[in-house]
Each structure stands twice: as structure tokens, then as C-alpha cells.
């Protein structure tokens, strides 16, 4: 077996182009996914059974079937219906890029809705009761207390979901998109160096996921500051008027 480093260096810029598309897919579908997931999770956590039914079926379908089926359903499946083919959505649905975005967004929405639901249910009841005691209406409670708190609680688990989404984005290569995996496959078809190219692509994937992990560590540190808070006493020679008698009583 011969190992060809030259091929890796020669085609590395092309691989990075593919990595760019991969990151774009993850970012765009992640943002759309969150937008769908928040109302879904609120409905899922509702006390009314008929409100809970739709998100339950949605989440059950998207979590119980392979992502590959979902992509193929959007990309190939939509063209079966003339009503879709002659509608205004066809210019979007005939492009693999948008089909991948739609499938990834719907998929990640289902997974993150379930994460957010468990986070919503993990908010201490006292905090909701406190918001109610303050006279907040239901909608103010949702935007000021429930969503920010649930986001903080769900953040570590959501970081894992983003990594899974990054790994899932490799499936975009099955509908002709030239993402990192797709680019590697195209280069291999030309040079026939599968081990070298897949190894290089794998290293790029590892680098991207390392960046995502670091980003989420940082975000967790920001959003869950209260967990990392250490009280430090005020300096002794501070103006007595600036002292808070409840905090330092020395």
C-alpha cells in the first residue's frame, strides 16, 4: 500500500470548501430548527391533551425514522405530487441545498423540542410561582422566565445535539451536495485514494466538532453564570454608603 500525502495537500483547499458548506448547513438548519422547536416544546409541555397530540406525533415520527429516509422523502418524495411540482414552492424544493436544509431543520427540531421539554419541566416550580406572584401574565412568564431558564438548563444537551447534527450533515452528500463528505467522495472518484481522503475529511470533522464543543463550553459559562459565581467581599475602605448591608456585614 502506498500512502500519498501529496494528494491530501493538493486537494485540501477543496475539502475546506466542502467543510464550509457543512458548517453552513449545520448553522442554518440549527437556527431554523430552534425556531420550530420552541413552540413545539411549549405545546408538548402543555397540560391540555389535545395540544400535546400534534407535537407528540411529530417528534415520534422524526425521532423514530432514519435521517436518510427523511432527506429522501423531501428530495425525491416531493416530486411525486403534481400539486407540489406546479406550486410556487417548486423552485425551492427542486434544489438539493434547500431540501437538505428542510430535512435537517425538521429533524433537529424534533430532537431539540424533546430536550427543551425536559428542560422546561426541570425548571423549579418555585420560580414559576414567583413569576406568578409578581403578577406576570402567561406570555411574559414564557418570554422572561421559562425560555431563558430552559435554554440554560438545556444548553449542555443541546451542544450534543449540534454535534449529532454535524455528523448527520454528512448525509447531504447522498443528494449530490458537495459538503465535506461529498467533496471527499468526488476527489476519491478522481484520484482513487479513499483512505487518505476520508482520513483528511475525518480530521476536518474532528476539528469542527472541537470548535463546537469549545463554543458551547463558553456559552454555558455565560448563560449559567450563577453556577460559577463566587462571592468576593467588598474592600474594607469602601464608602459606607456603597456597602450592601445584606451581602457583607464585616
Amino acid at each position: 500500500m502506498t500512502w500519498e500525502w501529496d494528494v491530501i495537500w493538493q486537494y485540501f483547499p477543496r475539502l475546506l470548501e466542502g467543510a464550509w458548506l457543512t458548517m453552513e448547513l449545520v448553522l442554518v438548519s440549527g437556527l431554523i430548527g430552534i425556531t420550530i422547536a420552541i413552540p413545539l416544546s411549549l405545546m408538548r409541555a402543555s397540560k391540555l391533551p389535545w395540544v400535546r397530540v400534534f407535537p407528540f406525533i411529530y417528534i415520534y415520527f422524526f425521532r423514530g425514522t432514519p435521517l436518510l429516509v427523511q432527506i429522501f422523502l423531501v428530495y425525491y418524495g416531493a416530486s411525486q405530487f403534481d400539486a407540489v411540482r406546479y406550486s410556487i414552492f417548486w423552485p425551492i424544493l427542486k434544489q438539493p441545498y434547500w431540501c437538505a436544509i428542510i430535512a435537517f431543520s425538521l429533524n433537529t427540531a424534533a430532537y431539540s423540542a424533546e430536550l427543551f421539554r425536559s428542560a422546561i419541566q426541570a425548571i423549579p416550580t418555585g420560580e414559576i410561582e414567583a413569576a406568578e406572584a409578581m403578577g406576570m401574565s402567561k406570555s411574559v412568564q414564557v418570554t422572561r422566565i421559562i425560555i431563558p431558564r430552559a435554554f440554560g438548563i438545556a444548553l449542555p444537551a443541546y451542544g450534543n445535539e449540534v454535534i449529532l447534527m454535524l455528523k448527520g450533515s454528512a448525509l447531504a452528500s447522498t443528494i449530490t451536495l458537495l459538503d465535506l463528505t461529498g467533496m471527499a467522495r468526488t476527489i476519491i472518484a478522481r484520484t482513487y485514494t479513499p483512505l487518505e481522503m476520508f482520513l483528511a475529511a475525518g480530521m476536518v470533522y474532528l476539528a469542527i466538532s472541537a470548535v463546537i464543543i469549545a463554543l458551547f463550553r463558553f456559552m454555558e459559562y455565560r448563560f449559567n453564570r450563577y453556577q460559577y459565581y463566587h462571592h468576593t467581599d467588598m474592600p474594607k475602605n469602601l464608602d459606607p454608603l456603597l456597602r450592601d448591608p445584606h451581602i457583607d456585614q464585616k
Partner: protein
Amino acid sequence: MDLQGFGHLLISGTWVTIQLALASLVVGLVFGLSGAAAKLSKNRFARWLATGYTTLVRGLPELLLVLTIYFGGSQLLMWIASSFGYDDYIEIGPFVAGVAALSIAFGAYATEVFRMAMMEIPDGQWESGLACGMSTRRTFFRIILPQVWRLAIPGLGNLFQVLLKDTALVSVVGLNDIMRQSQVAISATKEPFTFFMVAACIYLLLTAATTGFTMFMERLANPAARESRR
């Protein structure tokens, strides 16, 4: 729904998917158990190897693993075999490549599940086993492993569902599983939505059955809870 006589094709595909999932489960469990043993061992090299394995595999897309093993595996195997003096051509079929890729991926996640479960077992269990005069090996198999198993089953059940869904990826390298057979049906009938939807429903049935089976296994592995409920 009209399947236009392609139903038997989908059923044969389902059977291939089930075989692939079960074979990968068995091999993956071996990987997972050895990975956890290595991570908890006193040998620094073994710990380092296991950590490298889990970090590496959990950051790589499963599709990339499948493609690497299918397209690069025979090259790699032939290179290894030639150093032992075997120079014939070795070919890796899609089924073997699929089992290898999926079990490597499953094993990396299962390593963490088993490691967490083993750390949950109090040291007193080990000590009492040894105090009864059992050897370390016998304590492990009679006392520790059954309890690890009980703690690991919920996590392993989730991982098996992921594995079951990942089997669809092996259709990309030409294994005749559900996905591949529905594509065959589609090329004849030109009804992609119908057949992919049927495929999706078969996967849903399989995952639902897995959930039920996991619950059954949980009951089976936890006689204490089962008896106390009566």
C-alpha cells in the same frame, strides 16, 4: 396503499436490516465492554487507547465510517495481510463493512454507558465478593456484571435505536436493506413518496418494537424491582 407487488422486496429488505442491526449489536457490545474495561484499567496505555477510540469515533460521521471501511477497508486489510505473507485479493462486502462501521460507532458510545454503569457499583460489592472467597474474575462475572447490565440497559436501548436508524446508511454502499429495496421499487413505479413513507413506517415499527424489548429486558434484569411491585 398500493405497493404494486413490491411488498415482498420490502420485507426481504427488512430482514436484512434486522440481521445487520443484530450483528452490529453483538460485535458493538464486545467493543463497548472492552472499551470500558480499558478505560477503567490501571494500565495507562490501555486508558489512553480507549480514550482515543471514543473521542475519535464520536466526532466522526457514521456515513464517513461506512464509506471509509467499504472503500478503504480492503486496501488496509490487504496491506496488513501482506505483511504476514498473504498476497491474495481481499474484498469487503457491504454487509461486513456495515457491521464493522456500525459496531465501531456503537462501541464508542457503549463504552461510556458501561463505564458509567461500572462506576455506579459500590466498592463494597467487590470487597464482599472477595471476602466470600471468590477470585477477582468470578466476582466480576457473578456479582458485578449482572448489576452493570441492569444499570446499562436503558442507555444501551437508546444506543440500539440509534444503531437501527444508522443501518439505513449502509444502503449507500449497496446493501439490499429497506432503503435500497424501496429505491429499487421506486425506479420501477416512479412513486418515491409512497415507498419512502412505507420504509419510514417500517423503521417506526422496528424502533417501537425495540422500545418494548428494552422495557422487557429492564424488567428481566431487575428481579428486585419486579418482585417488590407485587
